[in-house]
């Protein structure tokens, strides 16, 4: 079952010897204070907090090795913690144990401007990274909205508004340094741009949500800051028209840097929250990157396609500050949505379908939501076929939760039937575990389970997430 019900799992107290050893090694950076544990026992999901028994603040790979080794020796659960901005219950300590906070590991280790890569510690956030490398003329494009840590983004295979152009963490992580459950330090790959030596461990760890190892260094690709950037808003009569416009643009091979859909309710919410004056109809936010002439050409082509699909004239945001206001509003769409219904909590979906099925999927979802007893908004990274529904619920009305879960199930079932997925970017965590069987099939899940037991035989790393090891579960 979904939030907000707490899970009933057996928790064992931490062994005294284990606590003593951590205390001796980490001093102040080992904490069992209630406030610290509370802070580490929740994320941005709707789940109630589930607290770890202790929190350790690590500063080096060697310290991570020490914690993992002890946890493995005493069979204590361990959950890596970055910025705490995940959405699906990834960080909740359902079996207690230690939350390993790496937010203090926030340095750039090396910037290789010529090779366009940077190696950072896992606690560095994407905004910190971009601020610190600004002078190099390069930038890190992946942008999940929240100011997430690079380690967390790698763990959840995050993406964001410009994945349509730059890909997700799957395409952009070059190499990882990982501490295995056995306390061994491995580097998954070298810095060369491609390699066919051995299995692709990098992509095995990217998206493994802390269940296979603890990431202590991340090497990612960087991109030259584009010569020209322009952004535009285009209003449409219906969500369907907007989606059709995006499909045409993708099929024509226009290299859109960003294309975001907001439905009428989401636009209304953003106008109120971010003090904008957008016309309140479904709309697309576009961004184009490239040389002056190619940006112009792309924009003209897309404007043409928009007109063919009933879109109105582009409203341009050429100045950097206008553009930033627009994208900040888009990034705040989550919080803006929550303000539509004061005191509410949200149940969020993250389905992703092949672009050719997107219009069909969004339409079916919209008509279902129209009948719901609570308000909702839709925003989407439509260039990837990925969209989010925010269902705004009264936390004191369990009937609304149940209704939203029914709708959530329908949305996911529909997406999977259209050859899509239950989660395009938020990861599985706790919330999506229920859908993995339907999506992957039992044989594929059993392979995942074998990978998990092969890497972490004692099941200490973020236990109870992604896949259930209990076959009956």
């Amino acid at each position: 079952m979904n939030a907000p019900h707490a899970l009933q799992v057996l928790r064992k107290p931490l062994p005294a010897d284990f606590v003593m050893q951590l205390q001796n090694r980490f001093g102040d950076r080992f904490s069992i204070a209630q406030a610290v544990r509370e802070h580490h026992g929740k994320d941005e999901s709707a789940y109630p907090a589930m607290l770890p028994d202790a929190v350790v603040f690590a500063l080096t790979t060697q310290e991570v090795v020490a914690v993992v080794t002890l946890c493995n020796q005493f069979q204590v659960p361990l959950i890596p913690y970055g910025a705490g901005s995940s959405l699906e219950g990834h960080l909740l300590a359902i079996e207690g144990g230690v939350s390993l906070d790496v937010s203090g590991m926030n340095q750039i280790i090396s910037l290789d401007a010529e090779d366009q890569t940077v190696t950072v510690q896992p606690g560095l956030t994407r905004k910190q990274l971009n601020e610190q490398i600004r002078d190099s003329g390069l930038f890190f494009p992946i942008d999940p909205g929240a100011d997430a840590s690079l380690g967390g983004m790698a763990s959840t295979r995050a993406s964001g508004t410009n994945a349509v152009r730059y890909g997700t963490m799957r395409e952009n992580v070059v190499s990882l340094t990982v501490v295995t459950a056995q306390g061994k330090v491995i580097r998954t790959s070298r810095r060369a741009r491609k390699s066919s030596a051995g299995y692709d461990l990098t992509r095995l760890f990217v998206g493994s949500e802390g269940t296979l190892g603890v990431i202590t260094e991340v090497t990612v690709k960087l991109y030259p800051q584009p010569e020209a950037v322009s952004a535009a808003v285009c209003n449409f009569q219906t969500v369907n028209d907007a989606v059709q416009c995006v499909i045409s643009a993708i099929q024509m091979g226009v290299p859109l840097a960003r294309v975001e859909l907001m439905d009428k309710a989401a636009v209304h919410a953003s106008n109120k929250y971010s003090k904008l004056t957008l016309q309140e109809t479904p709309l697309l936010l576009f961004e184009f990157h490239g040389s002056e002439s190619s940006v112009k050409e792309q924009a003209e082509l897309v404007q043409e396609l928009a007109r063919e699909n009933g879109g109105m004239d582009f409203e341009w945001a050429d100045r950097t500050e206008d553009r930033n206001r627009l994208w900040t509003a888009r990034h705040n769409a989550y919080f803006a949505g929550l303000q539509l219904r004061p005191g509410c909590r949200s149940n969020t979906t993250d389905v992703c379908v092949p672009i050719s099925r997107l219009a069909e999927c969004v339409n079916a979802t919209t008509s279902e939501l129209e009948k719901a007893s609570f308000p909702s908004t839709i925003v989407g990274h439509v260039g990837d076929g990925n969209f989010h529904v925010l269902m705004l619920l009264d936390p004191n009305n369990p009937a609304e939760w149940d209704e939203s879960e029914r709708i959530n199930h329908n949305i996911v079932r529909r997406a999977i039937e259209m050859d899509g997925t239950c989660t395009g970017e938020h990861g599985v965590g706790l919330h999506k575990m229920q859908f993995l069987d339907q999506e992957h099939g039992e044989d594929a899940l059993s392979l995942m389970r074998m990978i998990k037991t092969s890497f972490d035989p004692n099941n200490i790393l973020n236990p109870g997430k992604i896949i259930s090891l209990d076959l009956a579960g």
Partner: protein
Amino acid sequence: MNTIVGTGVKSVSDYTASDVVKALLQVLPEHCVLSRLEDTRPYECDGLSLYRSLPMAVVLPETEKQVQDVLIACRRLGVPVVARGAGTGLSGGAMPHAQGVLLGLAKFNKIKHIDRDAAIAIVEPGVRNLAVSEAAAPFGLYYAPDPSSQIACTIGGNVAENSGGVHCLKYGLTVHNVLKVRMITIDGEIVELGSMAPDSPGPDLLSVFIGSEGMLGVVTEVTLKLTPKPALARVIMASFDDVEKASSAVAEIIAAGIIPAGLEMMDQQATQMVEPFVKAGYDTSAAAILLCESDGTVEEVADEIARMEEVFQRVGATRLQVSESETQRLLFWAGRKNAFPAAGRVSPDYYCMDGTIPRRNLGRVLNAIAEMEKRFNLRCANVFHAGDGNLHPLILFDSNSADEVQRAEDFGAAILELCVEVGGTITGEHGVGMEKINQMCVQFSRDELDSFLRVKRAFDPATLLNPEKVVPTLARCAEYGKMHVHGGALPFADLPRF
């Protein structure tokens, strides 16, 4: 202790060739099982003909059910299985196991479905790479990865090796262009990895599977991502009087924020070898040439070509020539893609390496290779995917001379170890197979190799799929360490010597 030691196949087999053939005939029609020497001989090696071995039997199944039955039969008997596509691999990945079965997928050659709107193709593993693009052409689409062997190599083989090609700088490797793989495990379970959506939840087993060189499962169906054909593509041939300058031109292009559709380098030895054969119009007087392609809309290409020319001039190109027609563009690429056959014309044998390095070390490594030519007294032509930093030195030698063979192997090993030393990898796209298994000990630590074995154990605990390749056992590394002391440090110094 958590270290895993590769179990390997039973060294003294408790089955005979006739046991194996008998078991196979129970699940396959007679014409699908080859066991006579003259029938199995054509399968004794792949593109790396230095290593050869005859299998106990070759099977050529026709249905997925038959593949499944073969795997179940082999699992039951404990017989190794090596899968094979077109046999164009360059690292011995499809070389048969002497105690095993070679599983040929040549008969799985159907393109099942092309969906224009979704821009995907669903194909069987034995379909040739180029056949996909040919079938997709009427829809204005193509399959982007284009290994030079694309007229012959198969999609199943591309998946096994994570193949690239001259256009992968912009369009990615096989792993970036495959959405879904349907495969059978050694236990006979049919599993689908990946999804039609851009991302699928949970551990990314699809990426782990791609490039796994036939060690995790046998592919029976692949869903490929197709790419819209650009309106226009043009390629610049830029000449340089010095290899170092050509290398810095590569870095400058990338630094200028340009991602060319292809960026290839050939040195003078290579152009002089290719030109008489292909007549591509190469500047054979240049120390090195770059082929740099731009694709997109007409305006984009005009704009980008101008920017590329400006960079090349700044770095000191001695000559620039832009393709004036599609025919000329294809001819420029034909020269590059035929470098291997051309090498075959000028030298009795050649040995192709595949090291990949961070781009900024290109100049340094090329100079070191030139030094090695003197040290090993062998010629080496360089053609490579410069944009990716992926080198393909072609060492020319004569296999009739045992001494030359030895020098060629040593030369190759020295190049690969240099690649690792500058932060690169021993193989960018050809795979490890048999060929580079020793260098794996140089590139990866024991804990890293252990992680590979953990993956292997999850998929194939009895290590029957393509055994004794890719991931070296610790014993092998120790032995290799005895022979090649690397940078003064013995690899795995803490290991007991066997």
